[in-house]
């Protein structure tokens, strides 16, 4: 086992899947010679050559549209969109084609592609480089939407995403790329898509979170324990869609209290769907309304104010304490 950053772990997943399967092809802007602007694809072009690692012209719709064709032919394209803020240029290819080719061709074709893209705030980036718009993709029937929260699960989920027969949009939190290291086994490791994980067991309160928000969430949970003696159960969603609410429901049946955390804007965000599922399936177990700790319904401000916008451990703590007080 080696200690790796998330960038290194993602690189490992790509390298291993490319070694395992010559139908895996990487494409995107600056992914070859430059190794990707965050270096996730570093060294791949040297190992696999420029027919398997394609530096494309600057066109996101081109990258994704071409990936759909490659996938229908039987390849497994893993395309990188340099920042999720530029994935709207390829939105229609995902919505109109990647998500529906299976359905439109009566099951004859399918699109086993992965769209990897960095998302989220917290790294003092330029405008359009800090948004968290997972709800857009999660809203599309036929698309799987995955967001890892650390090096080890990023590696395992990316391997699973590449092997998945359906198109996966894979969000990578920029704020986590180099934030910390984790033991990542050299031998292959996958993780099922569509299974949230309990990362900390507890009986008093359920906290549902994912991606970059896992760190402040866990920080808050630790403080709740230390300062208030409260045992929070922390769930890492990992897959936003298809949302599997089973362990969320079980947890809430046990705790009777829940809060949901995301950095995406609140209205129509993933939290809205999560809360609905809990209302449908655990309503009679709830002691108090479920709070959401989220980004506000505004454009994430330029970097001087992004900290004020992003949920942090203190905001999560205050919400948890309100929820516990009733």
């Amino acid at each position, binding site marked *: 086992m080696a200690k790796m950053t998330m960038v290194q772990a993602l690189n490992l997943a790509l390298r291993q899947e490319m070694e395992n399967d010559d139908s895996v092809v990487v494409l995107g802007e600056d992914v070859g010679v430059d190794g990707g602007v965050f270096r996730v694809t570093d060294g791949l072009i040297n190992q696999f050559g420029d027919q398997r690692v394609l530096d494309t012209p*600057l066109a996101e719709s081109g990258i994704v549209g071409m990936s759909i064709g490659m996938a229908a032919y039987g390849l497994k394209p893993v395309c990188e969109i340099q920042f999720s803020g530029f994935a709207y240029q390829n939105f229609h290819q995902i919505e109109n084609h990647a998500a529906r080719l299976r359905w439109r061709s009566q099951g004859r074709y399918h699109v086993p592609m992965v769209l990897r893209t960095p998302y989220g705030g917290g790294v003092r980036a330029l405008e359009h480089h800090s948004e968290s718009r997972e709800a857009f993709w999660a809203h599309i029937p036929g698309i799987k939407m995955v967001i890892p929260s650390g090096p080890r699960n990023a590696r395992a989920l990316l391997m699973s995403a590449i092997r998945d027969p359906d198109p996966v949009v894979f969000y990578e939190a920029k704020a986590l790329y180099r934030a910390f290291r984790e033991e990542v086994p050299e031998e292959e490791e996958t993780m099922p898509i569509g299974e949230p994980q309990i990362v900390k067991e507890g009986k008093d309160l359920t906290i549902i979170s994912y991606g970059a928000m896992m760190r402040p969430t866990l920080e808050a949970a630790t403080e709740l324990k230390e300062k208030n003696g409260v045992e929070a159960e922390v769930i890492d969603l990992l897959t936003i869609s298809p949302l599997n609410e089973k362990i969320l429901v079980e947890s809430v049946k046990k705790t009777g209290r829940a809060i949901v955390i995301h950095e995406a804007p609140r209205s129509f965000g993933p939290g809205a769907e999560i809360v609905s599922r809990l209302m449908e399936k655990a309503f009679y177990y709830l002691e108090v309304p479920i709070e959401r700790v989220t980004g506000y*319904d505004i454009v994430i401000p330029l970097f001087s*104010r992004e900290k004020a916008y992003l949920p942090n451990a203190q905001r999560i703590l205050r919400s948890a304490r309100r929820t516990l007080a009733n």
Partner: protein
Amino acid sequence: MPRKKINISDKVEHLAILNEKGDLDKKLEPEIVDDLLLKLHRTMFLARKFDERLLSLQRQGRIGTFPPISGQEAAHLGAVAVLRPTDWMVPAFRETAAEIWRGRSLESIIIYNNGFNEGVDIPEDRYDFPISVPVGSQVLHAVGLGWAAKYRQKDDVAMTFFGDGATSEGDFHEGMNFAAVFQAPVVFICQNNHWAISIPLSKQTRSKTLAQKAVAYGMPGIQVDGNDILAVFAAAQEAVDRARSGGGPTFIECVTYRLMMHTTADDPKRYRTDKEVERWKNRDPLPRFQKYLVGKGLLTEGTMAEIESEVLQEIQEAVDRAEAQIKTLGNPLDMFEHAYADMPPYLEEQKKEFERELAEINKEGNHG
């Protein structure tokens, strides 16, 4: 029914007026009054020195990531210099000299690069768009602006800027086609600086020139030496005159070079050689223009030294003003501004919620 050549009469021209050494092709010299020449030189020089200062501020952590322009000043400054104040400029993000020419203050640029939206400071008497980061997306806005001016029977022109990489985006092609179909008064300025981050022009397109793309859309296209401010000025003048008089859009490819990194987050050593950069340093637009002005008797070593000290002082004062102003900014509640014309009730609630959060933070701060 023979198979025969279609005669496409449009030809793509290349225009250069000053050569690499700054020698003039007298026949092509545009008529520019002395005052304007000197003002262009001063702005070009200021923009270069400002770029250098921004880089050092960035390295000291006093501003965030930014895209340097050094080497490309002629390509964008020469073009906006032919606009009227009431024309529209629709920039990408590598046109700082043009923004300065149009009246944007140096301190606003520093404030913006410090992550404050207050740094978007459009001068009241100008009609310019803020910089546009999503590559190529702004091109279509210029078409809409131009068409709207035509609809209102005004002779305003819209000039838009973008890079070589942007010519691969769908928005660029849609913009070119719309402008031609609607004969909108638009001037497309492509700063072909040979690189789109790590992707060289040769991997961006198999076209021999970018200018020839105009032919496909049925509009005039011209390639100019983008490091020759006279050539850029002359081509832009022709294009703006045509647009203003109802002759429709023009595409101008300015061949230039990005001497610095893509942005301060980029390491160009990973993808290009120092030798290539050195070759282009020999074609630096600034000394070329200076040689021309010296030859015309408009500039001497003495006046150049004077301009340098003036410009450096102007920059220093802007840095001081910006850093002072930044201390007065930063009320996080301001982030709720400008979301809608009227704040919807639920957002109002969120703002109140955030105000309570701030109060809690202050309280906690006092305890700690």
